[in-house]
């Protein structure tokens, strides 16, 4: 298993380098201009100077190599220095990945935005799973019952209605009409008392609901299909013939087998948490990673977009590996030797 993991990690390195170059090339070839948002009164030669100051004057390969060095060497060194409080020396000479828009290090901004995304999107993923698994199990066990029919209908709705519809719908009902929850997520809120904690819950309910609904719809269908596959297996009959209770038959024998593919699907979905449900974050004004990416694209903030996109790529490669390893742990028939 360890061997396999190491081999996969080694293989990931060339994959990620190729990905980073593709992202870089696409962004460089895109007809975007970081000075495009500046007032029209600024003359062209000044704009050109700004571009050169941002480093855009250099040829593409040089810019790419600089980014590689900044991202893979300078940023990790900086992070280690920050964490343990000692210096490798030459810190001033090491340039970090700097945003075109804020002129501050990209990583600092990302770290500021990360908690909001993890809280809102991550929580909605967890809630979605917690709802989806029992629904999938019951729908499969009582196939074609009213519970299953309603579950199928609701997940079809959850699956097909986009979050940019359910989001505003909830805002209209619960913020505008009923006035229960705020429609804007306030990031500056500090949770230090029961009152502010309640406020935090209130502002999280709607975005979490919208995303959890969507996630639950998807995962419950997987869960149901996987349970149905296993319910008709011979070993289920064996378990019943041994005199095991229905609870043991379903929740031990069938569920354990059915979870194998579902856990894989869940693991593969985790990177999408970090890319932050972009649209939902926009709707509820959650200033998380998704919103950061959108603003970065709009302002042609190439280092920001490059870094964020590449981080998502790393997460996807990483969680593909994790999904494979978890699969091996759950299914004794799989051996990676």
């Amino acid at each position, binding site marked *: 298993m360890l061997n396999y993991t190491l081999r996969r990690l080694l293989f990931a390195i060339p994959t990620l380098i190729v990905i980073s170059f593709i992202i870089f090339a696409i962004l460089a070839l895109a007809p975007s201009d970081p000075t495009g948002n500046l007032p029209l009164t600024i003359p062209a030669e000044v704009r050109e100077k700004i571009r050169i100051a941002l480093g855009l004057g250099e040829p593409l390969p040089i810019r790419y190599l600089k980014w590689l060095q900044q991202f893979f060497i300078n940023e990790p060194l900086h992070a280690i220095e920050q964490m343990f409080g000692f210096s490798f020396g030459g810190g001033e000479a090491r340039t970090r990945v700097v945003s075109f828009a804020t002129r501050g290090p990209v990583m600092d901004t990302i770290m500021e935005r990360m908690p909001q995304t993890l809280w809102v999107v991550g929580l909605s993923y967890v809630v979605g799973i917690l709802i989806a698994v029992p629904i999938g199990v019951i729908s499969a066990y009582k196939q074609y019952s009213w519970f299953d029919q309603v579950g199928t209908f609701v997940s079809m709705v959850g699956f097909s209605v986009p979050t940019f519809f359910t989001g505003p719908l909830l805002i209209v009902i619960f913020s505008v009409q009923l006035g229960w929850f705020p429609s804007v997520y306030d990031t500056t809120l500090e949770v230090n008392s029961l009152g502010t904690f309640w406020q935090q819950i209130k502002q999280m309910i709607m975005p979490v609901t919208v995303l959890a609904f969507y996630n639950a719809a998807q995962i419950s269908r997987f869960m149901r299909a996987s349970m149905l596959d296993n319910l008709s297996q011979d070993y289920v*009959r*064996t378990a019943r*013939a041994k*005199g*095991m*209770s229905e609870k043991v038959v379903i929740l031990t024998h069938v569920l*354990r087998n059915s979870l194998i593919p579902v856990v894989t699907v869940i693991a593969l979905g985790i990177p999408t948490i970090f890319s932050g449900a972009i649209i939902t974050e926009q709707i509820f004004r959650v200033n998380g990673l998704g919103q950061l990416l959108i603003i970065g694209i709009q302002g042609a903030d190439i280092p920001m977009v490059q870094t964020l996109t590449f981080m998502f790529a790393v997460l996807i490669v990483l969680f593909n590996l994790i999904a494979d390893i978890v699969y091996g742990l759950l299914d004794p028939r799989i051996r990676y030797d």
Partner: protein
Amino acid sequence: MDVTDLRTVFHTQDGVVHAVNGISFHLEEGELLSVVGESGSGKSVTMMSLLKLLPIPPAEIASGTVMFDGKDLLQMELEELREIRGGKIGFIFQDPMTSLNPVFNVGFQIMEPLKEHLGLSKKEARKRAIELLELVGIPGAADRLDDFPHQFSGGMRQRVMIAIALACDPQILIADEPTTALDVTIQAQILELIKDLRKKLGMAIVWITHDLGVAAGISDRIVVMYGGFVVEHAKVDDLYKRPLHPYTRALLATLPSEDGGEERLKSIRGTPPNLGAAPTSCPFAPRCEHAFDRCHKENPALERIEGVHDVACWWDVEKEAPRHAS
């Protein structure tokens, strides 16, 4: 155990399938009863109906009683029935490749009924599980308890299944074609094992098979099934010496002869009946060489000829004449 007038039907999209049409038989303590018939003759469905192991729906047990220890299994609540399943009646299934749960080790799967029915602690159950694996002839039993089913060969897996079925010292062991999925040498080993276990443990066995040759070697009595009916029932010697139903005769004729002659193996012409409708005529009539007009109009009931020899046929194969003047 006494089974009376058991009827099982399946409700499918294409209509009702009458799989078991009023089966009656009884099983003495410690006896080995073979149930013989082609695929689709209702053997397995009958046995699974006894313990309500069929998925309901689509299956429905339309009528019948299964008396065991003075109680009707079919009327029991699930909770009570669960104590019989695995506790008093053990079940072995046809395909050992799929009948064990792939994600649990065999120790867990053997210990489950022990903990459930006998209330053994984990340690006691483990000890008993090792004994059981030794009993069914798995070498290195103690070490193999933590292995998963895929680490066992087909024959070894069937031995594990037998160990599970025998875990709680059942009074009855129902073996549903336990050797069909195995190759011939392994089949012989499993048969030896069952004979041996029967001597040691003395439980009654219902042995389901489509192979009259296998049935001859091990059973006390044989029930021959066709199209969801019992067509003949006799002690094993009587059945082979004096088969009374044309179907039984045809089955016996299909066995290869022992002198190893070079003649072609015989087969029964035609195909097993479609069980789509409740039969009003003898289900074997379309394939029967003795069929006459009555066979196409009325379905013969099982009647006693002598001793414990029953047959359901209008034709007396010995006298070459109809059994009853109609």
